[in-house]
């Protein structure tokens, strides 16, 4: 936390003094860990910079070694604490550089307080026998008449790291098997590794093989002898460490967005024009987008079949499009189907037959099996493959991988966003005699039971408690939001018509009430997708929110025309607005009769006859549209409340520590409406108390 107040140093006019004092009273709360984190980053950067700056051969090889350490990581204490320092020179006077001899290279490993020689074994019989000699730990080692040597430096650290990640056998990762492989490479005078061997095994053959497979992909600057490129040996460790949480993975695929609540920018000349108002009469038919996606799906399914070509899975458990969706088909029990298909997909991975389509399919199955961490790892692995071999996949498949990853991050974000707790001391002075026995408190915070009881017994007192005692938890949701939006941006940037990514991104902006951005994004989405109804719904929602009801109505009508009949019927459904008797009749009507009922309902309330009547109908559609896009349906508990009562004034979300979130939707006077949601679930359901309250409201204040 920082604070600095300013004494007034110069006479300011009275009318500015208040402003000056106000600005002087600002405090800026720095994240406590930011300073140490940045300091560590700086120290690392300085260490690399120092090595790079330091003079000739010995320190340059150290650079290569340090870079290599960073590439592979180094969790093994010996390797981690070691700095490989090249003291002697590779080429000695009289020895032609580029012709390795057993004693031409010297390595020393230093650790705090003691030196330790690296033991190594030779990559092949023709290679140098050892790299054995030791030189002083510091100071210029080469004599004045020694040639100036510059060691190879690794290029493309990120790409190398991605490459290593891609060869790390997934089966070993899942089993938590890791290790350090010491590689020894002969780097030619163009900086390319032309021979590779293991100088120290990890003890796991598959890891040793993986490191050797990756080695040809490393790129170095060539070693220089007196400014002339020469071939040379280098040696460094590669660490494979399983990381089931994948806590560090996101940054390797995408960096978080600086401004997460922004719109993506697609590199096409007309991108900005696409946010201009839509000419609804000239929108292309919805069928075009379906056809475009269908051909992309077919190509992905073919890719999946290629991955499974060594098995008969596609024949037995297919068709491939179903497997790609991760959805069970046929008469087999879904659990059994998933087990069989995921087993075959894992086998394909172990055989090195995987590709982005098979990783997408396996990831989707893993989500249904509750292995969300592994699913994310699979999507990221697929994305790395697409980065490494862009020709392998088309844009739709890349977008799908980004979108699935973004969806997992979105779930995590929704599980932590705006979550907080209420300090027990906030109840001091508040009176609610009937609730005195309700629930206890833990570690200074009120229990959820107590909050719910006070909410329904003493809503006024509870409002006071929330007002003074609600503490948002520091859950890191901003980071999740940023990563999630980065994934959605990436999906849209590679495939601008992607329905899921556009919808999730725009709904997120709508949750923050960024209506101008929602409108711009929805117009673009609608255009590039050939008039997708969700784009029109989002545009209509934004227009309704910024007070342009007439335009909103046109967009909603255009959306309804383009939606499947069942979806359109959901949006125009009236049941949440009817009293219980009418509702019972309404839900039994045939579709055509329902439409007639709806027309009558709105006509009697002024639709088509007055601006207010139209506005009311538009608002209903806007609520139903948001409920559908945000909660998946306008008919679930959350959708029902949203359609009936609209957006709450405020929402408090309390985490009871068990993964269960209790939401308090505040609609002004009276109790909040309470919901329960599991962190890993998209469903938001009324608590029993919330259900009773909502039902009672319907009886006391029947919808008009």
């Amino acid at each position, binding site marked *: 936390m920082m604070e600095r107040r*300013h004494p007034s140093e110069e006479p300011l006019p009275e009318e500015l003094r208040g402003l000056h004092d106000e600005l002087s009273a600002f*405090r800026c*709360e*720095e994240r406590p860990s930011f300073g140490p984190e940045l300091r560590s980053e700086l*120290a690392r950067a300085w260490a690399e910079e120092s090595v790079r700056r330091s003079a000739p051969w010995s320190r340059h090889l150290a650079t290569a070694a340090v870079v290599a350490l960073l590439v592979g990581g*180094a969790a*093994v204490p010996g390797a981690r604490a070691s700095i490989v320092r090249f003291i002697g020179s590779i080429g000695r006077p009289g020895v032609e550089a580029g012709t390795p001899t057993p004693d031409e290279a010297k390595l020393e490993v230093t650790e705090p307080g003691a030196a330790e020689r690296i033991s190594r074994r030779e990559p092949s019989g023709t290679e140098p026998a050892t790299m054995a000699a030791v030189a002083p730990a510091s100071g210029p080692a080469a004599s004045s008449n020694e040639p100036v040597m510059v060691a190879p430096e690794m290029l493309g650290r990120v790409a190398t790291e991605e490459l290593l990640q891609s060869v790390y056998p997934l089966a070993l990762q899942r089993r938590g098997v890791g290790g350090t492989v010491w590689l020894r490479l002969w780097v030619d005078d163009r900086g390319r590794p032309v021979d590779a061997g293991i100088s120290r095994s990890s003890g796991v053959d598959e890891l040793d093989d993986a490191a050797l497979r990756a080695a040809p992909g490393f790129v170095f600057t060539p070693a220089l002898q007196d400014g002339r490129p020469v071939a040379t040996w280098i040696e460094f460790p590669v660490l494979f460490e399983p990381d089931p949480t994948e806590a560090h993975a996101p940054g390797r695929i995408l960096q978080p967005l600086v401004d997460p609540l922004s719109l993506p920018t697609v590199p096409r000349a007309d991108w900005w024009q696409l946010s201009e108002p839509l000419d609804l009469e000239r929108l292309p038919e919805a069928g075009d987008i379906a056809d475009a996606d269908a051909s992309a799906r077919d190509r992905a399914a073919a890719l999946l079949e290629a991955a499974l070509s060594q098995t008969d899975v596609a024949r037995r458990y297919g068709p491939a499009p179903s497997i790609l969706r991760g959805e069970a088909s046929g008469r087999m029990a879904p659990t059994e189907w998933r087990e069989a298909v995921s087993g075959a997909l894992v086998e394909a991975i172990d055989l090195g037959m995987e590709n982005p389509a098979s990783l997408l399919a396996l990831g989707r199955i893993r989500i249904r099996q509750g292995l969300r961490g592994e699913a994310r790892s699979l999507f990221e692995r697929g994305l790395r493959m697409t980065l490494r071999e862009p020709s392998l996949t088309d844009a739709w498949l890349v977008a799908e991988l980004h979108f699935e990853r973004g969806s997992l991050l979105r779930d995590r974000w929704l599980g932590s966003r705006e979550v907080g707790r209420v300090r027990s001391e906030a109840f001091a002075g508040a009176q609610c005699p009937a609730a005195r026995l309700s629930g206890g408190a833990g570690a200074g915070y009120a229990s959820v039971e107590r909050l719910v009881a006070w909410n329904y017994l003493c809503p006024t007192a509870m409002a006071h408690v929330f007002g003074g005692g609600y503490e948002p938890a520091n859950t890191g949701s901003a980071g999740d939001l940023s990563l999630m939006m980065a994934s959605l941006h990436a999906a849209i940037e590679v495939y601008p018509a992607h329905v899921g990514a556009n919808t999730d991104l725009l709904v997120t902006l709508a949750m923050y009430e960024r209506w101008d951005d929602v409108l711009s994004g929805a117009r673009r989405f609608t255009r590039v997708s050939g008039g997708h109804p969700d784009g029109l719904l989002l545009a209509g929602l934004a227009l309704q929110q910024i007070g342009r009801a007439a335009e909103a109505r046109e967009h909603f009508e255009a959306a309804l025309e383009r939606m499947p009949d069942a979806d359109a019927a959901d949006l125009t459904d009236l049941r949440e607005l009817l009293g219980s008797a009418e509702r019972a009749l309404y839900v039994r009507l045939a579709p055509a009769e329902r439409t007639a009922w709806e027309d009558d309902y709105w006509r009697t309330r002024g639709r088509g006859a007055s601006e207010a009547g139209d506005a009311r109908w538009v608002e209903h559609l806007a609520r139903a549209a948001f409920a559908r896009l945000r909660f998946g349906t306008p008919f679930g508990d959350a959708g029902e409340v949203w359609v009936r009562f609209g957006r709450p004034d405020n929402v408090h979300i309390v985490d009871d520590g068990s993964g269960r979130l209790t939401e308090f939707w505040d609609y002004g006077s009276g109790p909040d409406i309470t919901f329960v949601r599991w962190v890993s679930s998209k469903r938001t359901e009324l608590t029993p108390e919330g259900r009773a309250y909502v039902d009672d409201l319907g009886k006391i204040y029947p919808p008009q």
Partner: protein
Amino acid sequence: MRTEQDVTPKGAEPRHARPEAPLPSDFEAWYVEHRSAVYRYVRFRVATREAAEDVTSVVFMKALKSFPRYDEAKAAPRTWLLRIARNAVTDHLRALQRRGSLHVSLDSIPDLVADVPSHDERVIRQERIQKLLNGSRTLRQADQEILSLRFGAGLDNAEIAEHLRISNNAVAVRLHRALKRLRISVERSAPESMDPR
């Protein structure tokens, strides 16, 4: 797979107990002494805490890279750092403009608060801060710069004068004018239009 900096070696001391890797001693001292001022300056100019952290990181990374070439005769360390910060902020804002987004929401500034004990008062002050910051972002760059140096970085008039290479008197005049324009900007904005929600 993790990188070296991400993991604590087996059998080693816990990460927090490990001695920090060294920085050049002068730079270390600057970092300790001036990081907060740089961060505050940046935070005053950008929309979110995350952006402020990113830009502050860029500032110190650039400073570290240029550190061997730093010439004390040309500028004091803080002045030098704040100049780098000004350029980094400009780059950041340009990048945002290119992406067409300079919005700030109340959600994004919970770290900027006024020092008041009451929760209600604090909320009201946060909204006021939001309005003032939005207002300041409508001012010309020179005004934003002087307000950020004064109220963000916490420089007094003499320090601002050194930083901008102008006289103390000119600083007082510019500050006065910037405050005046800010007041007008805030007053002109209707409450609902100031609030991006």
